[in-house]
Every structure is written in C-alpha cells, then in structure tokens.
C-alpha cells in the first residue's frame, strides 16, 4: 500500500509555519505532536511542501469502544473487562493557506486506508474520529461516519467493502 503521507520526524519536517484555522490543531502540532509520538501515544502523519514545511497532518491512535455495545452475533461470549478495538483518527488538519485543494479529503482517505491496513494485522472493528466542531462533524458525516448520541466521537465499521479498497 502506498501512502500520501509520511511519519512526522522533527528533524526532517518543519512545523513552525504551520497555521490551521482551528487554533487547537495548530497548538497540537506546535507543542504536543513531537512528545506524544516520541512516547508512542500517537503516530503523526504529515504532508509537506517542497521546503519540508508541514501543510497537513493527521494522528492515529489505538482506541476502543465499550464491549457491551457489541451485537451478540459478532461476539457470542463477551470476555469480561475487554473493550472493542478501533483506530482513532484523533486530529486532522490542513494549513489555512492550503484549504480548498481537496487535501483534507485526501488526508482522511489516507488515514482510513492506514487504519484498514492496520486492521489486517490487528483485530480492529471500527474507525473513530473526533470532530473538533460542527463543521468537522459535517465533514466526517458526508463520508459516512456516524454520530453518537452523547459521546463526541463518530464511528465507521470496517468490513469487506472497505477492505476491498486496499491494493
């Protein structure tokens, strides 16, 4: 599988000029992305311009959904204390100057493909996203991510239909 993005490396990629219209996403890349990935809490994937300045990024994290939400057909005897594995696309951001070029959509597809590929190695039943605001919610909704009722995450089941998109 070939990807658009490459793993963030603070020696190769310049983050200082990154500016997203959603401030927390700027702050995350500037202040926390390096530490978090060093501690293996997240993987940060980036695209850059020719000067190695980051113009977009997303993060992937192993996550989970509550086990008692699993339909009986899928899980005959739910093991106690277990949770249901999913992959979280925690943050996805594009430089404000690079908006409107379809990069957000391409990065989401890239993140989804990485998640599906990971699911062929480690049991993973769903992809979840954490929209930062109403617009982000709309963005994910159009691709089929489903809103929950109280929890802010949105989810999408991984099945053969999606697995078929790996090449």
């Amino acid at each position, binding site marked *: 599988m*070939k*990807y*658009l*993005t*490459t793993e963030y490396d603070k020696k190769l990629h310049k983050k200082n000029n990154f500016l997203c219209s959603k401030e927390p996403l700027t702050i995350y890349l500037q202040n926390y992305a390096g530490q978090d990935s060093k501690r293996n809490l997240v993987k940060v*994937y*980036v*695209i*850059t*311009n*020719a000067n*190695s300045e980051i*113009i977009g990024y997303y993060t992937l994290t192993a996550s989970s*959904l*509550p086990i*008692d*939400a*699993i*339909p009986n*057909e*899928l899980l005959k005897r739910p093991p106690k204390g277990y949770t*249901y594995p999913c992959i979280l696309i925690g943050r996805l951001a594009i430089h404000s100057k690079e908006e409107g070029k*379809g990069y957000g*959509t*391409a990065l*989401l*597809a*890239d993140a*989804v*493909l990485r998640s599906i590929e990971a699911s062929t190695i480690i049991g993973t*039943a*769903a992809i979840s996203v*954490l929209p930062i605001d109403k617009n982000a919610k709309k963005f994910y909704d*159009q*691709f*089929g*991510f*489903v809103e*929950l*009722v*109280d*929890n*802010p*995450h949105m*989810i*999408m*089941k*991984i*099945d053969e*239909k*999606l697995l078929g*998109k790996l*090449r």
Partner: protein
Amino acid sequence: MARFDTKLSDEHKSLIEEAAMLKGFKTLSDYVVSTMVNDAVNTITNTRELYYSRADRSKIMEVLSKPSTANDKLFNAIDLQKKLVDSEIFNNGIRQETSQEE
C-alpha cells in the same frame, strides 16, 4: 435563579475569602461559582470523550451490526488519494512543486 447552601469550616471559609479577594472577586459566592463553573466545564469536556452513555452504546451496537456506512463519497476520496499518490504530486509526503505553482 437557584440557591446553593453549604457548610464549611471557619478555616476553609477564611482561606477561600482571602483567595477571592486576591483574585478580585467582590463576594465569596462570585468566586466559588466562577471557579466551580470553570471546573465543571473542564471536567465534562474531558470526561465526555471517554464516557459512552446507554444511548451511545446502543448506537454503537446498531452501527456494528449493519454493513459499513462507508459511502461512495469516501470511495471517491480513496480514489483521489490514489490519484495523488500515483501522479507523484506527493512523493513520500513531500509535494513536488514543479508542476504546481500558486
């Protein structure tokens, strides 16, 4: 308007009063309410990402028991990703600027 009464020790009261004064609050109540509201907002925001209500759980169950909700728009996005990868506009995450100027 609602009311909230509580008992607290004299020590705690004078401690809180001093802090309220230092922060420039006119009354003890203003300080207590303002502080508690801030804390409540933070607590709820931080917890709600981890907490799945009964309604959330049944929604999750519904999503997982049906075919994936991935739609054509997502598949088009995947095609766009593949196009960008294949055209080598992005190579190893780096945009090749030769074919693309602002």
